């Protein structure tokens, strides 16, 4: 019985972890990138907030966290407003060119962890 409960708990935890990291499968964690530039567009929306960032002649789409997590970490809609300078560290998409998923972003000298 104890063993069964342990197994169920382990499965539930694994499921929770998979849920928290869902969608990271199509991002290449072996090739992290840092995108630095001005925020061109900003969407504070579910399921994930997104910004586009002009960097080195490219326009990156940077996928952020769900809005509830963004706001609880202090990254409000005002923080990621258009025109602000951002540095986003994360992983490039293996499916969509010039798209990345941010692990953390730094704006106005403050770093926000998004995972």
């Amino acid at each position: 019985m104890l063993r069964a409960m342990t197994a169920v708990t382990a499965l539930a935890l694994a499921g929770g972890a998979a849920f928290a990291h869902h969608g990271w499968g199509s991002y290449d964690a072996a090739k992290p990138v840092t995108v630095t530039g001005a925020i061109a567009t900003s969407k504070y929306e579910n399921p994930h907030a997104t910004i586009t960032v002009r960097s080195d002649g490219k326009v990156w789409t940077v996928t952020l966290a769900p809005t509830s997590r963004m706001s609880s970490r202090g990254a409000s809609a005002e923080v990621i407003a258009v025109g602000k300078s951002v540095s986003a560290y994360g992983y490039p998409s293996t499916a969509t060119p010039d798209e990345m998923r941010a692990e953390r972003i730094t704006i106005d000298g403050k770093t926000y962890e998004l995972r």
Partner: protein
Amino acid sequence: MTGEAPAILVALEESGFGAAIRQSVWLFPVANVGHILALAVFAGAIAIMDVRLLGGLAATAPVRLIMRARSVAIAAFVLLAATGFLLFTAEASHLALNPVFQVKLALIAAGLANLAVFEFGVKRALVGLAPGTIMPTSAKTAGLLSLAIWIAVAACGRSIAYF
């Protein structure tokens, strides 16, 4: 990718309704949690019906037990469809092109077709059967198909975010 999606789904996603779901603090999470809770109830009701069709839970007459469980399944399905529509609307243009989502929709259609075959065919052989009677092969087939289809639907649903 948005360019390839049917115009009506792009319009749905870009509508004020779609934007409201994405921008509301609580609407998307409530739909998300509601979808999972409805799924749990639906899965339970479906399991009762399918286990009965396969010959389990034999102390109750099959049609009687199946009809009781079915009203719960229908209510849960309505909630699943409603919350699912909200979640779909928020990202309609991407989801429409998601291969796993397409498979999921096809499987739901198969599940409903299996239900229709049961309702207008298999069920007739079960009407009036006493508790404990050995179930006909047609009923066992319907139950097995139903279990397989709905488990696959749930697996696809969970996998959408990974494709």
